[in-house]
């Protein structure tokens, strides 16, 4: 049952965490972490030093090596949230593990989306001379960012763990429905009001082999970072749920002994 997953039983013995790893680390996360650092280092060096400047964009193309992967990973994170939420809601056995993955992935996604928006506006300032354009892609991204901040706020509402899982699962599925609606309305809105043609973040770039490889490495590095962060964050959520559970055990004991002393 649901309860048995988090039920720690009443035990006051402190745990002897294994010394080899930090609390949420394992062999696998170590490997992912080291790989992520190595690939990320390569992306930074190659992106800043080895790759040439773009013919059209000039030096500002270097921002793309962190901007594009973070945008992709943000979308990946929200897709993971939606899939995990639907597993939680539609599976017969409502497993809280899916809820934690959904929450962890959304948190990481919001962080990557913030990075996307900031690096994107820095790039826009260099390329367009403006920090912000009402371009469909930017507008959709901004709405999506606010939507998932709302999702995280719903996760923080008070209530039991099951309530949190159910509420946020429903919100995550509604948010996914909303993405195409927002996207279509924004694209449609822009297409009717043509303004100066906006430089497409991907389209106009003439990439040589090294530039493409660096961009590809960026996607790999950010995917590794995403996996590492979600694994740790989701385990941290389990730990804090469990220690809340222990806190509850202690509170129950305290309330019971209060009765005995009366």
């Amino acid at each position, binding site marked *: 049952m649901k309860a048995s997953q988090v039920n720690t039983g009443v035990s006051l013995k402190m745990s*002897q965490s294994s010394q080899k790893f930090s609390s949420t680390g*394992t062999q696998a996360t170590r490997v992912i972490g080291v790989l992520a650092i190595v690939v990320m280092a390569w992306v930074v060096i190659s992106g800043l030093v080895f790759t040439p400047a773009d013919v059209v964009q000039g030096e*500002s193309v270097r921002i793309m090596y*962190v901007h594009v992967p*973070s945008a992709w990973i943000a979308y990946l994170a929200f897709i993971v949230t939606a899939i995990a939420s639907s597993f939680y809601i539609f599976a017969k056995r409502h497993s809280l593990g899916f809820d934690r993955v959904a929450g962890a992935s959304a948190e990481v996604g919001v962080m990557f989306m913030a990075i996307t928006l900031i690096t994107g506006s820095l790039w826009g*300032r260099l390329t367009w001379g403006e920090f912000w354009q009402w371009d469909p892609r930017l507008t959709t991204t901004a709405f999506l960012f606010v939507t998932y901040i709302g999702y995280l706020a719903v996760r923080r509402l008070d209530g039991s763990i099951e309530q949190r899982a159910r509420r946020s699962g429903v919100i995550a599925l509604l948010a996914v429905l909303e993405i195409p609606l927002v996207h279509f309305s924004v694209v449609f809105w822009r297409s009717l009001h043509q303004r100066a043609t906006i430089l497409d973040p991907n389209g106009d770039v003439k990439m040589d082999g090294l530039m493409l490889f660096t961009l590809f490495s960026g996607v790999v590095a950010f995917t590794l970072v995403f996996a590492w962060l979600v694994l740790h964050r989701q385990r941290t959520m389990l730990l804090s749920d469990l220690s809340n559970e*222990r806190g509850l055990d202690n509170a129950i004991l305290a309330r019971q002994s209060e009765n005995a002393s009366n």
Partner: protein
Amino acid sequence: MQNAGFIFASYVLTIGAILLFAVVTLRRAKESAKLVEDKNKPWI
């Protein structure tokens, strides 16, 4: 050169945000891990 500043800033912000997230997560993990027995950590 303004370009260099903007490009540098975007790299620093990106990596800084990731590191901050990682450090906060690990620190929280360490705190709550003390309160939880190893048998309840399925990854160990």
